[in-house]
């Protein structure tokens, strides 16, 4: 035990009055309070583990492990494992295919198999479902017989796709999430040009999040400064106005922006009325990237203002006065004395807004249109529509890694200890 190690290495072990080692005695004395502390934390810890940590880990695991194909086609999987991936498929492989298709037809699992292979090689879904219906006619030699049912069974690509899907532990989903393709014979190859969507989407997510963060900082800094410096009765009112959005539903706020920004909306009507733009050439302010940025900036603004405010509140006005009495102009005093002291708030607010923005989903879904979509909308799509959970998990995994990387970079540059959230 560690206690004995420490004591043996020390020259003279310190003992309590009754002769037991002091460390042991101390641990005994503190045991009760430790048990109490653990008891208080345990319920929340269990809840967080069960509802947050374990589901996340389970989903992350799906990003690299998918055994749909292997569990429903055991015979074929065995044969595919032996296959080199380039030679003509052997008679044994066709035989295994027939056996597994028959079972799948009976067990009604053919849909799942077809879906899984279709994820790997789009357009193969009907090959599986129709072949499964006809497979009872198949007779040896199976290769010939299957080819008669559908000539696509002679296509090497189909077999390669099956070999890939038969490998349960696969980097394939991460490759797809990075616009690349994991192949049997060439390893990773990049996806054809017109199917590269995810990397572009990741960059767009970063760009929009960064823009939103900068806008929040630009708009939030003066407000936070006012909040911290105004007399109490005015600053209370201002604080209520800052917090007001928190009391309204996210959906209400987002739809309000639709009413304001749409082509027949308030802003466009006003611009037409003033004469800045013609009635027929109204600006498209929503259902594009502009809409996403405007609505997200508005919604995330309090998350920037509050950390900034909490930092600015602690800076007494005497610093600025001191700087001015020492001969600095108001601008210089602000830049050299006030601003550096708000860095922890800027860092905390910036990081908070950026991380929230990077995973934002509802707002871009409602006002984003085509080019205002973020990676989270794609994750939702794969979770709900295409049911490709493994790809969703891979996309989510990359997003999480990105956030952790950012966090690490922040810690290196500014230091997490310097962060002040309130």
């Amino acid at each position: 035990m560690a206690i004995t190690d420490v004591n043996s290495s020390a020259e003279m072990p310190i003992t309590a009055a009754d002769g037991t080692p002091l460390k042991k005695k101390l641990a005994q004395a503190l045991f009760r309070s430790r048990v109490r502390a653990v008891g208080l934390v345990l319920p929340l810890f269990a809840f967080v583990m069960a509802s947050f940590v374990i589901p996340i880990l389970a989903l992350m695991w799906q990003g690299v492990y998918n055994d749909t194909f292997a569990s429903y086609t055991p015979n074929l999987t065995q044969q595919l494992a032996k296959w080199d991936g380039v030679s003509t498929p052997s008679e044994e492989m066709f035989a295994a295919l027939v056996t597994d298709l028959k079972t799948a037809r009976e067990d009604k699992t053919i849909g799942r198999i077809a879906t899984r292979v279709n994820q790997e090689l789009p357009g193969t879904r009907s090959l599986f479902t129709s072949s499964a219906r006809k497979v009872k006619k198949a007779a040896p030699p199976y290769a010939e017989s299957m080819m008669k049912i559908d000539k696509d069974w002679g296509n090497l690509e189909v077999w390669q796709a099956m070999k890939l899907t038969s490998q349960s532990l696969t980097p394939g989903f991460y490759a797809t999430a990075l616009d690349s393709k994991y192949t049997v014979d060439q390893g990773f190859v990049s996806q054809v040009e017109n199917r590269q969507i995810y990397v572009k989407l990741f960059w767009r997510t970063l760009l929009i999040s960064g823009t939103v963060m900068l806008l929040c900082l630009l708009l939030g800094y003066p407000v936070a400064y006012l909040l911290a410096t105004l007399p109490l009765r005015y600053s209370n009112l201002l604080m209520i106005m800052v917090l007001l959005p928190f009391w309204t539903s996210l959906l209400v706020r987002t739809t309000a922006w639709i009413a304001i920004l749409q082509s027949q909306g308030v802003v466009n009507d006003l611009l037409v009325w003033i004469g800045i733009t013609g009635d027929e050439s109204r600006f498209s302010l929503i259902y594009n990237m502009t809409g996403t940025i405007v609505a997200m900036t508005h919604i995330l603004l309090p998350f920037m203002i509050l950390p900034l405010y909490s930092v600015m509140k602690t800076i007494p006005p005497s610093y600025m006065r001191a700087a001015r009495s020492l001969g600095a102009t108001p601008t210089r005093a602000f830049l050299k004395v006030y601003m550096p002291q708000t860095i922890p708030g800027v860092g905390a607010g910036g990081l908070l807004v950026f991380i929230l923005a990077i995973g934002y989903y509802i707002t871009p879904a409602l006002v984003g249109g085509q080019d205002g979509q973020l990676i989270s909308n794609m994750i939702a799509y794969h979770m709900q529509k295409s049911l490709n959970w493994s790809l969703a998990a891979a996309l989510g995994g990359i997003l999480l890694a990105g956030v952790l990387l950012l966090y690490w970079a922040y810690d290196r540059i500014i230091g997490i200890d310097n962060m002040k959230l309130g």
Partner: protein
Amino acid sequence: MQTIDNPFVRFKNVQKSYDGETLVVKDLNLDIAAGEFVTMLGPSGSGKTTCLMMLAGFETATHGDIELAGRPINNIPPHKRGIGMVFQNYALFPHMTVGENLAFPLKVRKMEPAKVEEKVRKVLDMVQMLAFIDRKPAQLSGGQQQRIALARALVFEPELVLMDEPLGALDKQLREHMQYEIKHIHENLGVTVVYVTHDQSEALTMSNRIAVFDDGIIQQLADPVTLYEKPDNAFVAQFIGENNRLNGTVESVVKSVATVKLDSGHMVKALSINNDGKGSRTMLSVRPERCVVSAKKSSSMSMLDARIEELIYLGDHIRCRMNVAGDDQFIVKVPNTSGHLGLEIGANLYVGWKTDDCRALDYR
């Protein structure tokens, strides 16, 4: 109010109001000579800090002129006034080291780096803090921060330094030590200092002259000795040092000696300083250390019956609370000499003082 020829700082009929309804500073006239150490002393809310802030430029005077070396400075912004200032909470910039803090006023004046370095080292040496040049303010104790704040206010060699209760946050011993240090720096450099405090012993220790503020008005402006020995009015008598007050009515004034009939019926003689003559209410002020306790009546001084209520032994003297003329808060400091009286609680004695030590002031 006294005026000085060629004052360095002059407040001329200065008034200040924050809300347009009440005056925080009412008609302030104050001349400060170059090289002087003037303290503004008063209770909180008396307007002393407001006066300092107006001089520094952080508050604007509602009425009147403030002049610095003969020039009106009402419309000059704080950074162009060239006044050094030490703040109550030091206001050392927490993100800069001690050296950078001190270099700040020199850098904004676009001084060459080599010269900045030299000046910073010189002033740090003066406050004996050279070893701490690379520390951050948070790594210093309160007294050390105080020295740095002082050094920073002096490093750009201003002719006027303002101090706003700079020693308020220090413990008693350190505060007394710093009082001497500031006094010596003032004497060595010859700068003009305007110092704000509510601590009278601090004011008495350091100042050439003290302006006692109350209710937006300078109640008395005088050197420490005059202020203590010859207070002009009841407020100053009560505020500076310990004071025994006896209330009564003026019976007659002959030359400068007033005969006062106390509320208890006793007749007492006192110096007539600040009262409205025969028939007016007055407050008699006697310092506790000027009173004599005696078993016998003596004809050479005013003597009243007294009964000892409480005795506190303080080593060098015995603090004796007595009931005199119906007032049981009358304090006498009895020196602990070898032959002093064996004082006992409940003993009936006489307490007396010289007429010169008793001042008949305004009643308030």
